């Protein structure tokens, strides 16, 4: 077709470290690698533009997991996250995050990110979690990306905007060797050879279809469509606990957070149609989502965020925070519907499914050094397996990845690679450009995501999952008819393939774990009980030598923070006593 040259342009660049993803964790990985060793060459590849890419393109309204001396200790935090995830956590990685949390807040403060402080300059930390106190508001948090961008420039990180990484390059000796990218405006290829690669591509947030039917009306930035999970999988990395989905309580249709984390400390709460509280704690855990789901389906639904009882000055303050950070179009959405927090409760709903360790516990397996199971390959942020990461986790773990990668580079050289791998990948990428007619990325994506809703949304029923797998396989067969007319559509066609990979992984991982765990996230109707005897373990999904999707169990490492038996159940009793007694 005319938009593409028949001769493909391919540039090959060499670097020490390649970071893929310029949102939150990626820039921090690049910055910390350069701080560790300014002599290293660091390239940051971004599908959009680093200035405004990723989940926090418009900033953030607060830290949800700040471990600040005087309010919480790393040990308390590790305990809370272990309990909130039914014990299946790699505690060393959670501890690495927790101990890095406060130094990272101080670093962010020093580069111009603003946090709420009291009159004496101390951080104003609030309580939202069931047990500890970890929420630090950022009423002026809309400058996060600008502060990061200044540091990228200062440290001379090389940025390539509008290049979508499509596959990782594996060296002939099994080490990671770089990545292949395609320009989303010209279709030109860029091959980057690297000693180490940090994946920071965000969540798989375009997996299910939003109830509105609008493909891009997702909770996550829709650019975060699962590219990182797909690339890690095809490079042979293990992915952990993917059956622990992300499902969020959101503003209905708008699909953005209602923000009980922001409003809770001011007195806002989640209510049923009678205006009653039905959960004790608004922190997003699988059990909380199960209570939410149950209330929606009962005669007490819908579910709302209630602020009608709050004082005028409190509501104005909430409006200022919620309508100027993270998702600023929210005010416009409410205005269209005549929703004033003073008079009307905000209608909520649950989101479609996705993968995201930001609020859940799944992702590309990483240890406490952010290393994946492939030598030289790191992962950080929403796509890596450190649970309940949020934005601060992306920063801390991105920093850990960057520093460890810098050390790794010192003792390694550029791996040799097979040129045939690049030719094969270019043929795969360009296939939809070689057809004059066929199916569009739009309709194939719509169908794949609609099937995800129909068959994979919890409660998980084995018979439905098997049908879902068969129907998704039919969509995969249809890739042979996928057709695009310009580089923009080619990007969507490639994203569709990431989405299909993630849908297959979601289904396979869910069928593998034959028990129920994490509340709504992994509610197997055919296996309703939690089975600690057989399933108190991580699951790892990986591509085997034959190219098939395979699974194995990974034991939970001995805890670094012991948990008492009676504490482990804290997140299982979230229903308010009055409602539970009915």
């Amino acid at each position, binding site marked *: 077709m005319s938009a593409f040259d028949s001769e493909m342009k391919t540039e090959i660049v060499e670097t020490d470290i390649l970071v893929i993803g310029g949102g939150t964790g990626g820039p921090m990985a690049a910055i910390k690698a350069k701080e560790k060793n300014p002599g290293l060459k660091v390239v940051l590849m971004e599908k*959009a533009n680093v200035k405004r*890419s990723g989940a926090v393109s418009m900033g953030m309204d607060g830290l949800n997991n700040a471990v600040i001396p005087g309010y919480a200790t790393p040990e308390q935090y590790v305990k809370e996250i272990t309990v909130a995830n039914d014990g299946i956590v790699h505690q060393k990685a959670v501890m690495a995050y927790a101990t890095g949390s406060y130094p990272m807040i101080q670093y962010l403060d020093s580069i111009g990110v603003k946090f709420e402080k009291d009159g004496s300059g101390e951080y104003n930390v609030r309580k939202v979690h069931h047990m500890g106190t970890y929420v630090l508001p950022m009423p002026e948090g809309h400058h996060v990306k600008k502060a990061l961008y200044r540091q990228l420039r200062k440290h001379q990180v090389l940025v390539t905007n509008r290049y979508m990484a499509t596959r990782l390059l594996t060296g002939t000796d099994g080490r990671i060797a770089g990545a292949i990218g395609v320009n989303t405006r010209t279709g030109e290829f860029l091959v980057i050879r690297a000693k180490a690669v940090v994946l920071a591509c965000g969540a798989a947030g375009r997996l299910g279809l939003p109830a509105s*039917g*609008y*493909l*891009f009306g997702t909770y996550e930035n829709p650019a975060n469509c699962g590219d990182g999970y797909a690339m890690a999988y095809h490079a042979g990395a293990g992915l952990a606990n993917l059956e622990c989905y992300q499902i969020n309580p959101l503003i209905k249709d708008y699909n953005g957070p209602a923000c009980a984390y922001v409003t809770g400390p001011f007195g806002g709460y989640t209510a049923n149609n009678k205006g009653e509280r039905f959960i004790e704690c608004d922190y997003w855990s699988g059990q909380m989502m199960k209570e939410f789901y149950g209330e929606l389906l009962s005669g007490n639904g819908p579910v709302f965020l209630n602020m009608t009882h709050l004082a005028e000055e409190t509501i104005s303050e909430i409006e200022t925070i919620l309508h100027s950070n993270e998702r600023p179009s929210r005010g416009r959405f409410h205005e269209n519907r005549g929703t004033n927090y003073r008079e009307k409760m905000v209608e909520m709903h649950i989101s479609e499914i996705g993968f995201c360790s930001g609020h859940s516990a799944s992702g590309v397996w990483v240890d406490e050094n952010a290393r994946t199971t492939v030598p030289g390959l790191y992962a950080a942020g929403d796509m890596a397996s450190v649970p309940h990461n949020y934005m601060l986790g992306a920063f801390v773990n991105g920093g850990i990845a960057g520093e460890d990668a810098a050390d790794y580079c010192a003792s390694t050289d550029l791996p040799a690679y097979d040129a045939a791998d690049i030719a094969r990948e270019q043929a795969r990428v360009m296939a939809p450009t070689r057809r004059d007619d066929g199916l569009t990325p739009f309709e194939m994506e719509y169908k794949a995501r609609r099937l995800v809703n129909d068959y994979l949304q919890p409660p998980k029923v084995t018979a439905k999952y098997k049908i879902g797998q068969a129907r998704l396989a039919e969509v995969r067969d249809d890739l042979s008819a996928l057709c695009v007319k310009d580089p923009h559509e080619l*990007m969507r066609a490639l994203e569709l393939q990431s989405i299909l990979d993630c849908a297959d992984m979601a289904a396979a991982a869910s069928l593998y774990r034959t028990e129920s765990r994490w509340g709504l996230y992994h509610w197997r109707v055919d296996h309703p009980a939690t089975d600690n005897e057989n399933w108190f373990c991580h699951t790892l999904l990986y591509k085997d030598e034959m190219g098939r999707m395979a699974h194995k169990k990974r034991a939970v490492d001995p805890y670094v923070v012991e948990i008492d038996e009676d504490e482990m159940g804290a997140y299982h009793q979230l229903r308010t006593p009055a409602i539970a007694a009915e």
Partner: protein
Amino acid sequence: MPFANHTTSVPVTVDDDKCIAEKGCRVCIDVCPLDVLAINPASGKAHMKYDECWYCMPCEVDCPTGAVKVEIPYLLR
């Protein structure tokens, strides 16, 4: 298999009188995380080329002349 032309209303609109694309400005096009804005060949001004919007607002907030307006997509409104 022939294609149909599917028409939708777009959530992002640009005021041509305020847009200074002819002076080389590409701010809204640069910052869009989904790359859905482009120069309209007919007018030489920025416009929404693809209806694939996250209503995230960098295009509106970063525009130096206040030419860009983001509305919630109709399906969600």
